[in-house]
């Protein structure tokens, strides 16, 4: 049979011994996003897990609200809220074992905090005092990353290295729907599949990349479909259903840990607030669309499930809310203190072995700071001596 006679999809005529490596069918995602809450599947889920997810969801939302408020007070330069997406964030954090690694994107502060990071340290990038306010090794959370998708190959490399060392470690990498168009997304998935690296990719498809809707981002039937071309399974999950995200990620992680390679998970969710506090979402979406998603709120879904099954009552809810308030109050208070900064830190961590050029510049800044300090001392002494004189006469 010639190529022209072949029916269906074009495939070059294979040499005699050629065998297709895999049947793509098992790799394909289901047509509809996987759901657990409100279905029979929920009965199988450990009630404690549901309650933990619920508490983290409520805390997460409160965190988002508090951080957004801090931008209005000028305490944060910018904050990309994950309100509406908390189910993905907390499931990603809770599904990992302690030894596993999380590779967040810039919107994933919440996942990092739910994994145990100090809420203030998790915000330094956005506050502007430090690029990374925490030691990545402490909770195994890679630095929050602003260039889109570039953290994905890191996750693959780390997972690969762990496996080479014989460690039982999985990396979970988070990326947005817009980020899936970047070359690094492709390269990371391809490397992961070729190396069978123990890594799981979670795409939070929240509908938009700033203002650009998914339809302008990809022509694929779903983002999970992209997995098939790399030779890894693609899974589609309801991103507002924390139990479903936890379950699907849990299976993917078990798969990876068993040495069976990577999985691409697409969580279908919605960004309820603007891209960041600096964005005007009225320009690119209708209120009605946002309202429609409100009916599918991740916290409401979980609350409904828990109360229906008698796992949560008014007191329980109040306790969770009070916990969240306490966290927010603590965050507010600590963020309202000015961070102590040492300008000499600018030179502290550029190289293990600083160049002579940097040493010179360091000395220059040191001299400038000393001069500044002397000037202030003089000024203070002067002000003391002439405290009766009106302000402004003192230079």
């Amino acid at each position: 049979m010639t190529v022209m006679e072949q029916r269906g999809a074009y495939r070059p005529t294979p040499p005699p011994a050629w065998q297709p490596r895999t049947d793509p069918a098992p790799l394909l995602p289901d047509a509809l996003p996987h759901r657990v809450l409100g279905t029979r599947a929920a009965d199988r889920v450990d009630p404690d897990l549901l309650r933990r997810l619920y508490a983290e969801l409520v805390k997460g939302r409160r965190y988002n609200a508090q951080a957004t408020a801090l931008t209005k007070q000028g305490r944060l330069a910018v904050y990309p809220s994950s309100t509406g997406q908390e189910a993905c964030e907390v499931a990603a954090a809770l599904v990992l074992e302690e030894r596993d690694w999380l590779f967040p994107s810039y919107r994933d502060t919440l996942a990092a905090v739910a994994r145990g990071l100090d809420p203030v340290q998790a915000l330094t990038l956005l506050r502007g005092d430090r690029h990374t306010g925490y030691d990545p090794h402490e909770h195994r959370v890679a630095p929050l990353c602003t260039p889109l998708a570039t953290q994905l190959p890191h996750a693959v490399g780390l997972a690969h290295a762990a496996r080479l060392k014989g460690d039982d470690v999985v990396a979970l990498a988070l990326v947005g729907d817009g980020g899936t168009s970047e070359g690094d997304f492709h390269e990371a998935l391809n490397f992961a599949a070729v190396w069978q690296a123990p890594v799981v990719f979670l795409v939070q498809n929240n509908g938009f990349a700033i203002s650009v809707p998914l339809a302008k981002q990809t022509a694929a039937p779903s983002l999970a479909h992209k997995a098939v071309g790399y030779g890894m399974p693609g899974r589609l999950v309801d991103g507002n259903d924390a139990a479903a995200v936890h379950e699907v990620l849990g299976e993917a992680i078990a798969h990876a840990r068993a040495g069976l390679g990577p999985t691409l998970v697409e969580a279908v969710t919605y960004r309820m607030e603007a891209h960041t506090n600096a964005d005007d979402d009225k320009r690119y979406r209708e209120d009605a669309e946002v309202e429609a998603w409100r009916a599918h709120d991740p916290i409401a879904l979980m609350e409904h499930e828990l109360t229906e099954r008698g796992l949560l009552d008014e007191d329980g809810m109040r306790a969770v809310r009070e916990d969240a308030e306490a966290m927010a109050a603590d965050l507010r208070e600590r963020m309202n203190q000015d961070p102590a900064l040492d300008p000499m830190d600018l030179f502290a961590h550029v190289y293990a072995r600083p160049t002579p050029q940097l040493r010179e510049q360091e000395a220059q800044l040191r001299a400038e700071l000393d001069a500044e300090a002397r000037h202030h001392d003089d000024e203070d002494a002067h002000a003391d001596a002439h405290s009766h004189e009106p302000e402004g006469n003192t230079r």
Partner: protein
Amino acid sequence: MTTVAVKPATMAQALGRALRDAMTDDPTVHVMGEDVGALGGVFRVTDGLAKEFGEDRVTDTPLAEAGILGTAVGMAMYGLRPVVEMQFDAFAYPAFEQLISHVAKMRNRTRGAMPLPLTVRVPYGGGIGGVEHHSDSSEAYYMATPGLHVVTPATVADAYGLLREAIASDDPVVFLEPKRLYWSKDAWNPDEPRAVEPIGRAVVRRPGRSATLITYGPSVPVCLEAADAARAEGWDLEVVDLRSLVPFDDETVAASVRRTGRAVVVHESGGYGGPGGEIAARVTERCFHHLEAPVLRVAGFDIPYPPPMLERHHLPGVDRILDAVARLQWEAQS
């Protein structure tokens, strides 16, 4: 007793030996890139390594430079010391994002918690008759990125010594290999490999009194040739091989220029925005009162690297260097 003459090694072989010795000494050293395995790299630098150390440590990656460097970043995060090969200078550009946004910055942004001890080997420069994208001199881009060390050997001994040091360094190093010199040989004894001067030190390759030629990598042998030819004109040229562009050895360079009072910077990459401008400025800042003439630059033209049949007109050669040296003598003649 018979003495067996040592068979001299090429620069490519010395680089391979450095990789092998580094891998033997340190099990966390991994080599990865396109065709580095069975083929031994298109320049055969990694010849035999895959056989010796296995595919887990000498890995033929998919063909994706950002992916190669990006996964190497993750491996370094987990305590390995990856040595990445970029096949050719201009094919390293897809990996720039990873290099600049992550490799160069990770130590700084994590305040020292997450250093990335990795080496990026980049064959660079022209003179081998390569077609487009096979002859770029990209050192200025790397030099302009804080957080990276940038080194380039000109001798076989330095190829070995500098690469060993680069791999052992806790800072990321862009290791530029002058591909025109891959087949060069000198007195380096492959049976007694040893490290030489450390990264960050320049070396006077030929002492002289009339003027200093400041150069590095593929232009070092050209400058030595120019210095030989200059003798006919009565000029005694000093040749300084920088070896390391970052960090820069101001001391050795300035000491030389103070002795000679005249300097020409020689490199293949374009002059505008090129390394020579930075070097000339540094020399002027330090040696102004010792200078008998302005610091001149002999560089490639400010053009995309030309097609191979024209490259000899582009590359700085002996005549152009001697012309510049002649221009330095204006004060003496007037």
